[in-house]
């Protein structure tokens, strides 16, 4: 394994990651089936996909905390030159929280109700930084709270999580995940349970923190608006596989994969729209327990041809850093929506 230098271009490379769940009676749900992507240093990658597409499972696999009965069946996760799937558990525990940290979706349940905020923040610091003193930990905690826009930190520390609103708790959680200056932050649907202004506040705090510390972020969401406004490059997942990935502007303007096109067309817009109805994608997402033959989007795809139903498309390069897993990529432009009005 080549020893890459610190300023290696990609901080994280995921190659052919496979995570399966055996759900009894021999049935295996292939939640993540061969996912490939890489993340450049201090850049933001947005993973978008509907529920059941395997995006959360991908994030848990990177941190190696897949819930039972899931297991990582194959592939490599190269993080700063080191394959995370091969190192022992003790080493992995040092990386979690110190090098990579995870933000959960529901702030109301991700805090220990019996511990004060101070105990939460200090515990992470003291667990990883052996020999650090309590006052040092407290100083760092106040520093991090300041960074996410909480100025009355001292008064906050004494209180319990149940005394704060959901938005405030999510802010403290972000601060907690930045306390050891990790290199990678994974945010799994950080704002789904919050309202519009709270969501904007949290995303603003995340941007601030990213600008100040140069940390690279993977944000996972099903909200197209949030991910297109926040990230540098996008990565669309469907039924456990990557269907398209490219820099943000390229994907939003000229998507190639029929599923991405369908998604973008079915997102309601703030601006005036000609026809009242949205062009929705017919049918329902596939049942992950059954074996997927051919392209898993073929049953719902309007461009599907005979080849699509037989063999699974590979991820092909269709543009500058633009990859698409489709036999017949569509060249479509958001501006002239009429092209497909047909």
């Amino acid at each position, binding site marked *: 394994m080549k020893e890459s230098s610190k300023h290696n271009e990609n901080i994280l490379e995921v190659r052919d990651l496979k995570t399966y769940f055996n759900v009894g009676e021999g049935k295996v749900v292939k939640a993540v089936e061969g996912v490939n992507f890489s993340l450049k240093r201090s850049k933001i990658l947005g993973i978008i996909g*509907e*529920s059941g597409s395997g995006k959360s499972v991908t994030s848990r696999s990177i941190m190696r905390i897949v819930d039972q009965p899931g297991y990582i069946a194959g592939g490599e996760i190269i993080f700063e030159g080191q394959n995370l799937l091969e190192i022992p558990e003790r080493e992995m525990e040092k990386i979690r929280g110190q090098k990579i940290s995870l933000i959960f979706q529901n702030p109301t349940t991700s805090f220990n109700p019996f511990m004060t905020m101070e105990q939460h923040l200090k515990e992470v610091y003291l667990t990883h930084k052996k020999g650090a003193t309590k006052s040092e930990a407290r100083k760092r905690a106040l520093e991090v709270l300041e960074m996410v*826009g909480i*100025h009355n930190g001292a008064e906050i520390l004494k209180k319990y999580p149940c005394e704060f*609103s959901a938005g*405030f708790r999510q802010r403290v959680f972000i601060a907690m995940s930045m306390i050891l200056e990790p290199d990678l932050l994974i945010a799994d649907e950080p704002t789904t349970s919050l*309202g*519009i*202004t*709270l*969501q*904007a*506040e949290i*995303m*603003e705090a995340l*941007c601030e923190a990213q600008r100040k510390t140069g940390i690279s972020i993977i944000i996972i969401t*099903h*909200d*197209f*608006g*949030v*991910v*297109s*406004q*926040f990230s540098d490059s996008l990565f669309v997942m469907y039924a456990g596989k990557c269907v398209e990935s490219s820099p*943000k*502007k390229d994907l*939003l*303007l000229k998507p190639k994969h029929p599923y991405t096109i*369908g*998604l*973008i067309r*079915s*997102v*309601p*817009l*703030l*601006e*005036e*729209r000609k026809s*009242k*109805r*949205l*062009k*929705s*994608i*017919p049918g*329902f*997402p596939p049942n992950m327990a059954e074996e997927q033959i051919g392209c898993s989007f073929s049953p719902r795809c309007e461009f599907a041809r005979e080849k699509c139903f037989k063999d699974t498309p590979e991820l092909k390069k269709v543009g500058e850093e633009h990859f698409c897993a489709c036999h017949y990529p569509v060249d479509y432009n958001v501006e002239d929506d009429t092209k497909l009005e047909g």
Partner: protein
Amino acid sequence: MEENNIIISCNNVKKYYPIRDGIFNRIKDWKHIVDGLSFKLEQGKTLALVGESGCGKSVLLRLILGLENVTEGEIYFKGKSVYDLSEMQRLTMKSEIGMIFQDTLAALHPRMSIMESLKEPLLLNGMKDRKQMEKVIIDTLECVGMAPDFLNRYPHQLSGGQLQRIAIARALIIDPQVILADEPISALDVSLQAQVINMLIDLQESRNLSILLVAHDLAVVRQIASDIMIMYLGTIVESGKSSDIYKNAKHPYTKVLLKAAPSISKGINNEPFHLDLKVGDTPNPENPPKGCSFCTKCMEATERCLLERPEPKEVSPRHFVSCLYV
């Protein structure tokens, strides 16, 4: 705007919850959940109530449905006040309102199969013979795009999208004139959302339904609603036709909402997330500000805003804004 095609109208509706304390639970203070609300819903139109959690929009629906009593003000259904209806009239009113709840799984009885849940509204409306009931149920399922083979399954065995359609079917099965929907789409994925939005629009046109929709996603509201009301902390800050609201929003809170709402076009031209709101927690309903409800968070708030409660001013036809500086 003749009087008779107004389905539901409220004037100056208030709802306070008591805060009890002390050994004998004496009422210490009042929580202003809905603080003086007036609006009209016309036949065949869709009115959207937009606001963030805690602004009292779901409570307003419960008041209209009679699940809770109003502390002050009246609610009229087809011109007659809801509270002095006779028993018979109340029953007929109930058969004309359909309700779609936010948490579709919790709105269906966990141990009743889908068939039984759909039969309940028909039984309660006096339909007796089984054949007819089954026919009505299957027709309604058709128009929400569901095959009848789900009928003897239990709610927890269905996916989010399917539950949503069953909830809409149950609301439609008694052929109501008004549909009240509490965030029917926010829990769904993007592709399913589009399917449900299209369905609601088709149903509205085919059955001349009027829909009172509660939502917090401005883009979805733009798609469905003809009239919009923006709520903040139990009061209406701005109301009007959807084109007026989106094109020239006047109230600071509406502007903040429009700016904060994420969208693909903002993504394309790289607009950052930026909120011009005062930092700090939103005021809680326990001690609402005396003056304008938005004064503690509004950037342009002045001394006057803190004391004087603004009245809705008509800025343009049917476009009302409650702000002192408009």
